[in-house]
């Protein structure tokens, strides 16, 4: 099954990015701690020049390095990690992978290389510190037109005019109609279904047991509704027969039946 990811609002994206950054930092801490169990300053042998100002300088440097060795290892690892993830992996880090965060441009397509470079340069100019906020996306993301996507966020629906009406006759033949191609639907938002070619927008097969003016479906962004037009053999959602002359909510992707013809609206 394809992974469906929708664009995250900036405040939610900022919080999840912060959580991902914490996971990454913890991981780097684990790696640096493991390295420090193997490599210690005492094990690093440096041959120093004898009796000179340079030697004193090196010894002083060595003493400082010994104290700050764990910090140096952590900073070094962080720099390497940042370079690899931002340049080679296109912003993908273990933390972001765990949280299912992916980067895209505003249209949902992959981020162009030029925009990635721009983002990386801006991030570098602040050492990534401007990203440490939980209320809004950092400026470098906004400037590059980045959008963070997640499976937690709803995938934007298609326009109603791009929805498709699918009809399956008794003999199994299927017909598909794009709602935007039905002129009266574009005008009124209603879809008339029946055998009467003069009245109906969706004309059912003449061999069908459906009525000439069988039912009407109205569609808006909030919901889809259906009304049975006092048909002879009735309209059904599943096995439930609809009350005639009463608007009933049609659940999303539900299949309804005009006597012997199956119908479905795919949004």
């Amino acid at each position, binding site marked *: 099954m394809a992974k469906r990811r929708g664009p*995250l609002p900036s405040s939610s994206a900022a919080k999840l990015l912060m959580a991902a950054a914490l996971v990454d930092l913890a991981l780097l801490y684990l790696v640096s701690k493991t390295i420090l169990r193997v490599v210690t300053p005492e094990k690093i042998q440096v041959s120093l020049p004898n009796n000179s100002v340079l030697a004193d300088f090196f010894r002083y440097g060595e003493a400082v390095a010994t104290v700050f060795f764990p910090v140096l290892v952590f900073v070094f690892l962080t720099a390497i990690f940042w370079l690899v993830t931002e340049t080679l992996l296109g912003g993908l880090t273990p933390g972001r992978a765990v949280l299912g965060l992916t980067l895209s441009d505003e249209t949902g397509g992959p981020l162009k290389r030029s925009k990635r470079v721009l983002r990386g340069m801006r991030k570098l100019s602040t050492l990534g510190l401007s990203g440490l906020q939980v209320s809004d996306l950092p400026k470098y993301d906004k400037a590059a037109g980045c959008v963070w996507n997640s499976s937690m966020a709803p*995938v934007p629906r298609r326009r109603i005019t791009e929805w498709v009406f699918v009809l399956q006759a008794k003999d199994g033949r299927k017909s598909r109609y794009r709602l935007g191609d039905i002129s009266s639907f574009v005008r009124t938002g209603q879809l008339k279904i029946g055998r009467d070619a003069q009245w109906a927008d969706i004309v059912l097969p003449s061999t069908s047991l459906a009525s000439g003016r069988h039912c009407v479906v109205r569609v808006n962004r909030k919901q889809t509704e259906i009304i049975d037009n006092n048909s002879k053999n009735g309209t059904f959602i599943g*096995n439930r027969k609809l009350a005639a002359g009463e608007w009933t*909510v049609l659940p999303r992707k539900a299949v309804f039946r005009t006597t012997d013809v199956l119908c479905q609206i795919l949004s």
Partner: protein
Amino acid sequence: MSLSKFLPDLKGNAGLAGITLVQVVGFIADCLAIITTLATIYGIGDYLGGQNLSVIITLDDSPLAFRLMLLLLVCCGLGWALGTICKRLTEKSQEYLHIISFIMAGLFALILVAASEVIANQSKPGLLPQLQLFTIVGVGIVVMLCRFQYRSLDGLASGSTLELRSSGILIFVSVAFLIMLLLELS
């Protein structure tokens, strides 16, 4: 498949008739997951309390693979339960339920780190720092399961719901690593 197929009394009630069998089965599965998680937590508490258990697990000499497997089981229960509870709480509009969801996130983080510490081999430190390793792996598993619970299949998650869930995840991760750090310092 709609419930109205099985329960004709629902006819005319669009809200109830819209409930699908998958949603009902999912709800029952969620309830079972919560019960088994609570049973697991009770079991760990019982073990720590030195009470008699029918199965005694000796962790002292257990290899890393066994410990990781145990951690995986605990984290699966924790992740599923946290995701389910917070999902239900953030769907409601009452603010106190949102606060409870944040408290639950913090509490589950505490349980996770406590479980990691119990499972980690503190007496024989090897090359890998086990407490940190288990906490990071545990946080990853729990967050992934929460994300799975929060996934938006039908476009129902509003902006405010998303923000509440994101905050919950951030609180969980922050508290878990904060406690790990405090344990490290202690």
